[in-house]
């Protein structure tokens, strides 16, 4: 029996129909809503490709059952990181483009979401702190060096 689920995603209230109240959040975002930011990588909380923000915290949406998310939780995906109507992209997104910090880019959703969350709490991280914050985000292409540079660059923008 399909049930209706209310969520708050990227600043909008949405109602989705689901069959399984414990379906992970990732599938609502990708399949019900057609979002492309969060990615399936492992489904095991091991790679970070599916990272979204819930109440500003980076969360692995592949293992977050919908039963734990309500419309009182603000869910933000890569699509919603730059607020609608903003003149410029979010500093982390800008910095990733400027540093050309992607190869295939499949991991980049997680890298950006994780580092945006880092910069929200640590405005001027050291390189070591960036590496530590991203230690559980996997990249197979070996784009790490550029990703670190991009996060450091973004931290300069956000200092204003």
């Amino acid at each position: 029996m399909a049930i209706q689920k209310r969520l708050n995603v990227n600043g909008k209230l949405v109602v989705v129909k689901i069959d399984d109240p414990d379906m992970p959040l990732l599938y609502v975002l990708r399949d019900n809503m057609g979002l492309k930011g969060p990615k399936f990588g492992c489904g095991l909380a091991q790679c970070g490709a599916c990272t979204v923000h819930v109440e500003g915290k980076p969360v692995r949406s592949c293992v977050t059952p919908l039963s734990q998310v309500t419309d009182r939780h603000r869910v933000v995906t890569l699509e919603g990181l730059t607020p609608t109507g903003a003149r410029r992209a979010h500093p982390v997104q800008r910095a990733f483009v400027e540093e050309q910090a992607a190869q295939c880019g499949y991991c980049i959703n997680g890298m950006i979401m994780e580092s945006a969350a880092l910069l929200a709490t640590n405005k001027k991280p050291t390189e070591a702190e960036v590496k530590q914050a991203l230690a559980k985000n996997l990249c197979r292409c070996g784009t790490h060096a550029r990703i670190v540079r991009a996060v450091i660059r973004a931290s300069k923008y956000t200092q204003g």
Partner: protein
Amino acid sequence: MTKRLIPSRRDVLKRGGALIVGFSFAADAAAQQRPLPPPTIRPGLPVRVPAPPARSLDLADVDAYLAIDISGTCTIYSGKVDLGTGTNTALRQIVAEELDIRFENTQMVTGDTQVTPDQGTTWGSLTIQVGGMQIRNAAATARQALVAEAVKRLAVKADELFIADGLITGGGSRATYGELVGGRAFLLKLDPANPAPTKNPRNHKFIGRSLPREDIPSKVMANFTYIHDFRVPNMLHGRVVRPPAIGARLQSVDETSVSGIPGFIKLVREGDFLGVVAENEWAAIRAGRELKATWSPSQTLPEQDKLWDHVRNTTVAASDTTSGTGDVEKAMATPNARLMKATYDFPINTHGSIGPSCAVAEFRDGKLTSWSASQATHNLRKQLATMFGLPAESVRCIYVEGAGCYGRNGHEDAAADAALLARAAGKPVRVQWSRADEHGWDPKGPPTLIDLRAAMDDRGNVAAWDSEFFLPQQTPSGFLVPLVAATLAGMPAENHIAPGNIFQNSAIPYRFPNVRTVCRRLETTPLRPSWIRTPGRMQNTFANECFADELAAVAKIDPIEFRKKYMDPADRRGHDVLDRLMTLAKWEKRPSPQVSPEGNVLKGRGMAYCKYELVRTYIGAVAEVEVDRVSGQIRVPKFYVVHDCGMIINPDGVKNQIEGNVIQTMSRTLIEEVKFNRSQVTSLDWESYPILTFPDIPDIVIDLISRPAEKPWGAGEPTSAVVPSAISNAVYDAIGVRLRSAPFTPQKVKAAVSDSALQAPDATPSLRRSRT
């Protein structure tokens, strides 16, 4: 209208000089009406690509590669696809350069069997070197023809024309490329033996510049469509249920175990192939997980800790001598010759793309359309046609970019899975593998075992080099890695063993008086093999460059000096690479190992050199390491690379590839190893098959040697070749023990340290495996 950016008159003259006789644009009605090229799969639009009208796919035709529409936009049709390496951007730079057109006025269509020429698999670092040069020739030929047409239309001599940004001006008149050829075919042949002249590198506007990649903004802003995001109308979701053991037979399956799952549609059973189809992805995942099936037991794999004995005992199908000079045996038998020998091994690796394999397929009116991230859509078409008993024309394979692809991974298999499920469901089906499907069932980089022997005379000169590489055979008929679904379902297939050209770089770039390098091509290998980045070249160079280092150490010569001593003095580019490497890494000339090591954490530096396949890209590398003798931990804080791939199209793109090669291969060298039991792969997730993470990433320092007047060579793989040996040699420099068995885990380092403590000081320290 003439702008400063236009090429010099002399350049126009020179290039416009050799016009093709008999050229004419096609002006027939059919060609006139040819609609614009099919849309690229644009970010944000899950479009179904309409079948375009037939276009030439003949590699000898300009039209196979290029089409200019009436707006002057040039669509580039490339059989080589962008695997996340930025080659689409580089190919557009090449065309913009040779055609004199704005970069923005170029666009790519890639890897679609119906509209792109078969330029071969996207592998071997050949996209620019081969594919790009075919396209470059097409662009230069097209430009020549456009000039000729302008001469006629404007009634102006070729040497009075100015050409820039797709606009030809002269004698007070002007014509755009769109006006000259827009929407029509060129009907021109390429002449590879006598290619149209290309631009003088001094006038390059696009080649050699770090143009930002076309795809990165949309990837960063979440509107890029990966195959994982690709959808077609009425699409269902499928999952595969693989056997719990390789070779297990499906005995029974209980559909009632999943029939209650909301959204479940269908069970698909075809021989030992098992899959489920559902309305939505989550229902398919649940059904795949919860399906109850019984399988026969099967044990086809060797025991992992006897892997190397197994390799050594596998029947040799053929022995290929890849180089030979002099008489190795005689040199070895010389009295006073100092004999050395060592065995190296490199384990089985998985591709480990961060996004698992994924594909969408649709059968309609007896025709199959397959969307996947295959690096070889033309080969995939052949395989799917064979599997389903269709003529090749009834199968269309379309490339949609996936997560990074470093060789033949599971994409083609997912394409076959999707096709089989789509046929059964009668609707389009999307299949995405689970992480365990990916780690368990993608084809593997095969295990590699290498024996080396050498003889040195009493003055420390190398007299003989003899090596034997134990590598799975490559069956001669082609590079078609069997499709899992076809094998399981017992459907028609050509069954190849296809590890790729892994014999490459078994021969060495050093001129010793007596050399013999032989590849023993084994009949079988434990897991289905394929090529993973730098296949064979990396493993073979690991052995060669470490063993060369062993010889240098015994001869007490600086490792770079040792190599230069034996390299062909006429190979200036090779010597340049090593000279610049010494500068870049502030190399201190001395033999390895460092003297009197003290303390537990020791620093060392090691180098390695490779001329890719002995005919192209040159790479020299230095690794700086810190080795903890007690814990066995190796850290690589710094890694230097000098790289000469000739003409560089996009320097930042090349650097991105070099960085990726270093990090990925460091990971393969230090920690990666596929684990298995007698039945199946057991390293089925990222915990059991870890890869390198941020805290362990080295600082990478790169010196790109740019040679704009030379041919462009590949950059996607060559650097990987030197990574394991540079690290192993650095460890030797630090602590005086050789690591000859990858991965260099702490356990192996500790075992090596205690081994070497037991050895006589004069002996060559020897370590292959840490097994007790």
